C-alpha cells in the first residue's frame, strides 16, 4: 500500500544543533505507528515536523522532504491546508485559556465559520465521548476549560483535535497524565479510529506501544535506529540497542 506520509533524509536543527538526523520513514494509511526512545532523543522534534509546527519555533529548521499523499509539505503549499489534514495532540495540555469547555472542543469548527449550534453540540458530544471525557464534563460544558484537572484538560485537547476530523493524528504522549481507565479508553479509541485515521503516537510506555501500534520506530539521540512491525520490534529486533531498550535494560 502506498504510504500516506513519507519522510526522506529529514534533518531537524535548533540553531546549529542537529536534533534529528537523516530520518527515512514511511507511514501506511489507517495504521497506528509508535515512536519510542529515551527522553531527549528527538521524538517530539520529529513529530512536530510532520505538520509544520516548527514554523513557529525561532531557530528551528527542517531539511529533507516530507510528503503527504505524494505532495511535499514543505514545498509550495499553505501550511494551514497541511494542518487541516494533520491534527496534533501535544505533550502538555494546552486548552484555550479564555474559552469554556464546549468552546474549546468546537473551536476548530467555530473559528472556521461553522455557526450552527446543533452541529457544534453534536460534534462536541461525539468528540468528548471519544476522548472518554463526556460523562465528566457534560454538566459543566459552559464553565472555563482551565477549571478542569490536568488529565481532563489533556482529554479535552484530544477531543478538540478529533473534532475537526483530521486524516492523520499526531499524538505526543497523550496518556502520560491519565489514569489507567482513561488510558485504556484512549487506547481503544486509537483502534476504533484506525478505519478513518492514521495515527502516529509518541509513548514512553512499552506496553502501550505493543498494545496499540502496528509499527514501531525506535529513536536514539536523533537517529532512527530501527523501524518495523511492532511484533518484530518487540520480539525479534534486528538492532541490539533496540533490544536492550524494549526489554528495559536502558533508557
Amino acid at each position, binding site marked *: 500500500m502506498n504510504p500516506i506520509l513519507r519522510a526522506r533524509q529529514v534533518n531537524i536543527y535548533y540553531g546549529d544543533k542537529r536534533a534529528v538526523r537523516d530520518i527515512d520513514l514511511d507511514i501506511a494509511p489507517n495504521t497506528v505507528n509508535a515512536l519510542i526512545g529515551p527522553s531527549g532523543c528527538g521524538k517530539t522534534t520529529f513529530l512536530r515536523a510532520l*505538520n509544520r*509546527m516548527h514554523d*513557529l519555533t*525561532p531557530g528551528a529548521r527542517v531539511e529533507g522532504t516530507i510528503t503527504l499523499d505524494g505532495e511535499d509539505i514543505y514545498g509550495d503549499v499553505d*501550511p*494551514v*491546508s497541511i*494542518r*487541516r*489534514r494533520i*491534527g*496534533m495532540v*501535544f505533550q*502538555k495540555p*494546552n*486548552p*484555550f*485559556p*479564555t474559552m469554556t469547555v464546549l468552546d474549546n472542543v468546537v*473551536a*476548530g469548527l467555530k*473559528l*472556521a465559520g461553522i455557526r450552527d449550534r446543533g452541529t457544534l453540540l453534536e460534534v462536541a458530544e461525539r468528540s468528548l465521548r471519544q476522548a472518554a471525557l463526556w460523562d465528566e464534563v457534560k454538566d459543566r460544558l459552559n464553565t472555563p476549560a482551565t477549571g478542569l484537572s490536568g488529565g481532563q484538560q489533556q482529554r479535552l*485537547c484530544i477531543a*478538540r*483535535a478529533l473534532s*475537526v476530523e*483530521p486524516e492523520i493524528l499526531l499524538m505526543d504522549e497523550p496518556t502520560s497524565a491519565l489514569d489507567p481507565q482513561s488510558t485504556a479508553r484512549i487506547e481503544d479509541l486509537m483502534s476504533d479510529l484506525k478505519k478513518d485515521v492514521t495515527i502516529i503516537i509518541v509513548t514512553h510506555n512499552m506496553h502501550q506501544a505493543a498494545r496499540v501500534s502496528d509499527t514501531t520506530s525506535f529513536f536514539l539521540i536523533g537517529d532512527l535506529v530501527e523501524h518495523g512491525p511492532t511484533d518484530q520490534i518487540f520480539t525479534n529486533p534486528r538492532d541490539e540497542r533496540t533490544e536492550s531498550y524494549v526489554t528495559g535494560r536502558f533508557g
Partner: protein
Amino acid sequence: MTTTLRHADRIATSRGARRIRNVVASVLIGLGTLVVLVPLFLIFWYLLSRGLGAIDLDFFTRSPAPPGEAGGGLLNAIVGTFMLLIIASLIGVTIGIGGGIFLAEFPRHRLVPLVRLVSDVLSGIPAIVLGLVAYGLIVVTTRQFSAWAGGVALGLLMIPIVVRTTEEVLKLVPTSVREAGLSLGLPQWRVTLSIVLPAATSGIVTGVMLAVARVAGEAAPLLFTALGNNLLNLDPSKPVSALPLSIYVFATSAYPEQQRLAIAGALVLILIIFVASLVARVATRRR
C-alpha cells in the same frame, strides 16, 4: 539519632534569627510603601482641600466667566478633553494595538526591525515636538487650529505606549496556545484574533488606559494644535480647550477666581483618569 537532634537544634536557634530578619524586612517594606504613598496623598490632599470648594454645578455646566467676574466653570475644557482623548484614542489605540500585534505575532517578518525602531524613536520624542509635527501636518495644511490637530498630537504620543504594552502582554500568552490553534488548521490571523488576543484583553486594556492617562495631562502639544477656546465648541475642526490648557492658563492668572478654576480643573482631570481606569478594570475583569 544525634544528627537528627542537632538538626532540630539548628532549626530552633535559626528560628529566632529568622524572626528578627522577618521583622526588619517588614519594617523596610512598610517604610518604602510609605515613601511612595506620601507624595500621592499630599497631591490629593492639596487638590481636594483647595479644589473641592471650587467644584459646583457651574463648574460642569458653564464655560469660564470673563476675567475678573465671579462664577463660570470649565465645561469647555472638560468637553474638549474628552473630544481630544477620543480622537487620540482612535489613532493611538488602533495603530498601537496593530503595531503590538505585528511585533508579537509576526516576529520573523522583515519589517519588524523597522516598526520597532519607529516605535522606539516615537517614544523618545518630546511631547511638544509631536505637537509641532501635528501643527505642520494639520494646522498648516488646513490653516486652522483644531481638535483634530490636538488629537493627532496626543495620538502620536499614545502609539508607542500602546505598542509596547500590547507586545508585552501578547508575549505572555504561551506559545503552546498558538500551536494548539494552528494545529486545528486555523490560519494565523484567526488564531491571533480569536484565541491569543482574548487571552490578553485585560492587559491590553490596562495599557490603553495607561496611555490615555498619560496623554490626558499633556498641555504642551496642545498649545499650537488645539490652541484652547474660552467657549464651548463641539466642532472638531475648530479650536477646543482642554483641562491641562485651562490649568496652565488659569494657574498663572492674577485673578483668584481663575486660580480656583485651575485647581478644580486639576482635581477633575485626576478624577476623570481615575474613574476611567477603574471602569476599564472592572469591565475587563476575568469572568
